[in-house]
């Protein structure tokens, strides 16, 4: 009789093994496919970023899963973000790639935004820098020359709620009289507008600055003023390593006013700087993802970042900035999440009042 039950037991084990739906256990992704939602079109900055990371994540995630890039363009990245929020299960098989354009509507409390970074687990983040420059014919050679500078300036902008919040608020804090000319489709057209004399102050992200603006500086057609800065390991804004001779925006403020920037405007600027530049792109796991899965992803990201071949990719295609994995990314993004509601409110009110844009 015992043998009879033994055989039945074996039969039951075999049957359940054959019919069991495979699940991720112990965060081993063998035979799995991971969906990486990128809320932008193919070929854009975030898509390129995801496609650079994707093969390395496949290499270092346990079990070497296939990582599928799922582009979900539209709604300024809100569509993809909301899809992730509603549909992603906490099983490690769906991740989200955000950019500054995804974080800004979240920070601005756009009513269409359903996604909530405070509930997700950040895996890694990628910074980028920005450098501001001016037409030297205005008599400005460096940021020191901006003290008491009252001439009207023009800036080619993509919109008051876009990444342009960073330059527009910086100009305001530095006391510059800058008129934002809206309707430009990106920083590339902004730089062209600068070269054509339509505007006289501009900024470019560091890769574009190195490629397109440094030659203008050599020709005497542009004068670099400041970088927006870069985040150090403690979350402080320091000089951008791409242009270490230029002051960061907070330094520029100090040079002009003799004191460090502070108050709700600067607090909001800093939070948006971190979201838009300091941690411009980030990978996220959904709410309620287990600690095992989060740790596995963060460990894989750390291995990717340490990979010699990937370091070359970072140098060549991601501006050479240190990539932030795990705790570094958590600490960095916490600055975005910690911005007091009153400071966010200050910024929203400033945008709505100055640029007549209805945000909420």
């Amino acid at each position, binding site marked *: *009789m015992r*043998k*009879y039950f*033994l*055989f*039945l037991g*074996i*039969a039951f084990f*075999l*049957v359940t093994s*054959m*019919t069991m739906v495979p699940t991720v256990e112990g965060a081993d992704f063998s035979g799995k*496919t991971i*969906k990486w939602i990128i809320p932008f*079109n*193919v*070929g854009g900055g975030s898509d390129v970023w995801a*496609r650079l990371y*994707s*093969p390395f994540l496949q290499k270092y995630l346990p079990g070497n899963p*296939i*990582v*599928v*890039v*799922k*582009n*979900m*363009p539209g709604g300024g990245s809100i569509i993809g973000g909301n899809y992730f929020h509603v549909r992603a299960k906490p099983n490690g098989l769906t991740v989200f790639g955000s950019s500054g354009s995804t974080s800004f509507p979240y920070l601005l409390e756009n009513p269409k935004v359903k996604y909530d970074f405070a509930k997700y687990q950040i895996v890694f983040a990628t910074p980028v820098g920005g450098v501001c420059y001016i037409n030297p014919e205005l008599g400005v050679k460096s940021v020191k020359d901006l003290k008491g500078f009252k001439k009207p300036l023009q800036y080619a902008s993509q919109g008051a709620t876009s990444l342009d919040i960073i330059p527009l608020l910086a100009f305001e804090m530095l006391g510059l009289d800058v008129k934002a000319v809206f309707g430009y489709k990106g920083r590339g057209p902004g730089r062209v507008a600068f070269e054509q004399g339509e505007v006289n102050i501009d900024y470019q992200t560091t890769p574009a600055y190195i490629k397109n603006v440094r030659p203008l500086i050599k020709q005497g057609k542009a004068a670099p003023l400041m970088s927006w800065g870069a985040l150090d390991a403690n979350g402080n804004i320091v000089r951008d390593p791409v242009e270490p001779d230029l002051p960061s925006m907070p330094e520029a403020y100090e040079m002009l006013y003799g004191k460090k920037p502070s108050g709700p405007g600067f607090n909001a600027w800093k939070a948006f700087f971190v979201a838009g530049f300091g941690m411009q792109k980030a990978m996220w796991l959904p709410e309620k993802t287990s600690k095992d899965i989060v740790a596995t992803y963060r460990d894989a990201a750390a291995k990717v970042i340490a990979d010699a071949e990937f370091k070359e990719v970072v140098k060549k295609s991601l501006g050479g900035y240190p990539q932030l994995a795990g705790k570094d990314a958590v600490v960095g993004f916490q600055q975005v999440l910690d911005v007091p509601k009153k400071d966010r409110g200050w910024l929203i009110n400033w945008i709505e009042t100055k640029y007549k844009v209805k945000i909420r």
Partner: protein
Amino acid sequence: MKKLWVAVATMVLIIGLVGCSTFGSGGGKPAPQLVLVTPEVALDKKATVDLQGLNFKPGQEVALLFIDVNGVTSDIGFALDPQPVADKAGSWATTWNCGRFVDRKLIKEGTYTIKAADVDYNVLAEATVNFMAKK
């Protein structure tokens, strides 16, 4: 001894039955098929690829996966018109607007694999498409 043989027979019967239900899916039903209506496409920024599916489950939503020139897999659903959903006969048809992949150099001259999968990316069928230099 007799009981032992009964136990063995029971085990074989159970495995046999489950095996039939698990692996014998279809019982003569043809497997899903992915058909490239345009298996050869000229490299162009306005390039399109026409695809059809046969023998899918009626009402099934289908994801199409494309492996680009760098070996990265993409879910190309955002660039499909219409979204592929099998009709009552298990068929669907769609057009992939792949010009942006060409423009961004994710497709160069050569042969590429497209996979038809369910929404969880379990691959059901696959086919290849050949991109040729524009004449």
